[in-house]
């Protein structure tokens, strides 16, 4: 019985990192009311599976993206565009970052006084990324993308333009 309890405890501990992947709170009360344009996409569980079916199975690249998407737990996009500069509190970026645990590591950080600030952070478990957050804060636009689940970072760019995820790398060119 003691052995059983010990192995059960081990199993629970081993399962903890996966269970610890929690959805980041992306609700910002009152922000949508101030914004001129809002895009709010919530794809989780079965809905994500359904959406992935619209990726072609013929093309090898799209098939690989589809396989990656099938392993994800959720994709969440929040984008707000404002009429004037400074209509949202830039402290929102910090409020999102504060929710991220110690396993979250910055991958890309872009700072600009006039244009946008971009932060890309990944939830690294060993050499695997189990989640990703992209925060783009411009004077008139605030966008957050949260991808929950195992991600092949090399294939990440393939997700741009799919499921409402903005084409960040193309915008930078």
């Amino acid at each position, binding site marked *: 019985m003691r052995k059983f309890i010990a192995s059960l405890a081990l199993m629970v501990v081993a399962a903890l990192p996966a269970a610890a992947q929690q959805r980041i709170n992306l609700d910002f009360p009152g922000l949508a009311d101030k914004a001129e344009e*809002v*895009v709010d996409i919530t794809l989780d569980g079965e*809905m994500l599976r359904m959406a992935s079916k619209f990726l072609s*199975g*013929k093309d090898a690249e799209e098939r690989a993206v589809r396989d990656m998407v099938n392993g994800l737990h959720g994709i969440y996009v929040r984008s707000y565009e404002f009429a004037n500069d400074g209509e949202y509190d830039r402290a929102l970026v910090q409020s999102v970052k504060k929710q991220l645990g110690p396993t979250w590591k910055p991958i890309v950080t872009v700072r600009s006084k006039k244009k946008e600030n971009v932060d890309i952070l990944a939830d690294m478990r060993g050499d695997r990324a189990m989640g990703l957050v992209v925060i783009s804060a411009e004077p008139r636009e605030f966008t957050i993308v949260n991808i929950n689940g195992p991600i092949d970072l090399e294939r990440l760019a393939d997700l741009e333009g799919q499921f409402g995820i903005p084409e960040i790398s193309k915008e930078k060119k």
Partner: protein
Amino acid sequence: MSRRVLLGAIVLVTIALPLSADFRSVARALDSHPGVDRVSVPFLGLARLAVWVASPEGVHDFQLATFEGAGKLDGQQLQQMMERHAGEGFSPLVRAWSKKKGEWSFIYAKPKGNGRTELLVLSHDSDETVLVRVDVNAEVVARHIEHEPRHVGNVSRR
């Protein structure tokens, strides 16, 4: 006599079609708003019956309602209507709006099992408001789009 029987059969089958409380509830909420009028679409019931019987390209059922005079409704009111009346099991998939253009779109979804999903779509601009409910098999629809991309192009151009 046979014409009467046929007519009666059509009426009976149309009545017997699965009624979606979610769709009706949202439509009723929109219709009850002062100044908003539902526009009737002729033969829509027959079209729905045909879809229900034949399930073309993975579409098992649909309902559609268009409204005039909803210009005074703002997006928040529409969002509240969807949240309050979309019904159990429906969750928001896409909510997008542009105050500048006066356009509001909401897509709520409910998985039904066996690969089928119910989508409740509310699209609103200054001219009209359209509410659609479709019961689709995403895999069959996706397969059709993959094999017949020209059809999708034709539909999107309309």
